[in-house]
């Protein structure tokens, strides 16, 4: 039996009928076509499916879509786009924080949440904030460097929705 749910995703209200077995990850990718959020392990270990739900990061593969009823969700698509990068995305590009790129959406969402809570994080805070996100290319040093850069960029250029133009 389908259940009616309402969710605000990246500022847009969505009303859908879903099966209770559908995960939030499946809902975002298959119902809303927001495929920026990735499925890695599917059991909460890799963090590539990370989204912000009601102000907190969650593994969208571990949340049922019905449990996100009446929630406010931010996915990677809510932070910037190809032409207007968010300062965190810009920092990842500048510092080479992206290798294969599969972990990047989840990493950036975790970092966005960190910088909301702690605009100038220590390295320890950065490592803790991304501890639930695995980079299988093992590019952690550059990711941490990119987060430091993002904190600086964000301070000097606070993001204008939906993001800033990529500087050359």
């Amino acid at each position, binding site marked *: *039996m389908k*259940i009616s749910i309402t969710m605000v995703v990246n500022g847009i209200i969505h009303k859908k009928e879903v099966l*209770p*077995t559908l*995960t939030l990850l499946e809902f975002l990718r298959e119902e809303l076509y927001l495929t920026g959020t990735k499925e890695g392990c*599917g*059991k*909460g*270990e890799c*963090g590539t499916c*990370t989204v912000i739900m009601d102000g*907190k*990061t*969650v*593994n969208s*593969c*571990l*949340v*049922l879509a*019905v*449990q996100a009823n009446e929630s406010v969700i931010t996915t990677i698509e809510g932070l910037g786009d190809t032409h207007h990068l968010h300062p965190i995305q810009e920092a990842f590009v500048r510092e080479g924080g992206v290798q294969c790129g599969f972990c990047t959406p989840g990493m950036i969402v*975790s970092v966005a949440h960190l910088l909301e809570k702690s605009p100038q994080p220590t390295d320890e805070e950065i490592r*803790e*904030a991304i*501890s*639930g996100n695995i980079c299988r290319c093992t590019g952690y040093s550059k990711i941490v460097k990119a987060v430091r850069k993002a904190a600086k960029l964000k301070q000097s250029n606070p993001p204008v929705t939906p993001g800033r133009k990529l500087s050359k």
Partner: protein
Amino acid sequence: MSLSSFSYWQALSVPDALKILHNEQQQVKLLAGGTDFTVQRKEGLWQDKHILDIWKTKELDYIRESGKSIQLGARTTMDELIDSAVIRKYAKPLHLAACVFASPQIRNRATLGGNINNASPAGDTLPALFVLNAKLKLSSAKKDRLVPIHEFFLGPRKTLLQPNEMLTEIIIDKLDPKYQSDFYKLGERNAVAIAIVNLAVCRKIDPRSHKVTDIRISYGSVAPTVIRAPQTEQLLLHQTLTESLINKAAERAQSEVSPISDVRASADYRKEMSASLLKFLLKNNRS
């Protein structure tokens, strides 16, 4: 991967949830943050079961301090435990366990009640709750009962919770902030690892005589359930923590654990580490 299907109910209050548990003939599986449930579902568990979602039962989401005890609603998340000044001050082992629990994402969803009900021998909050002498309030439509945590677990994934009952509250005695509390989780990675061994120790040392006036030691992942190590505690009580005594205690602790070999580690390694971690924590004397 065989995904199980299930029927879904949601309860917005405890009386609602208890009524459903009371009236339903078939066994009902409770769901809160879902961090274990969704994984177990992918392993084929809970097929065709009735799922009762209590995530939005906000009346179970609290940390209250009264007199000598702290009451925690079963729906309290790990993240809320970490942020609580009361837990940090009066239930330090639980604060430390919550800090190393899984990952930031999982700590935002995983609940204390869920970690207890899941009844894994490796559950990270359990050694902390054992040294804090936690009591569990099990509620049904007809009555509540209080069960000491060490009596609750019958084996891996087995508890004495009845089908018509749910865990509603966890009660702990406040721990005097003079106690030194330590928690160590040994896993394959810092985040999201299931413990190979986890260990909570809290101790009170008399500042003048330097003797141990109280010590509580609890191990996870080295027996069918989380355990206290009463003989090791007894050996250390009223003594000064010298190197030779600590070595003897570590040896004694090895005889109190009964680990198995599994995909994460061998029984021998777990035994070795049970001793090593205890030595490590006992030697780290901050008083």
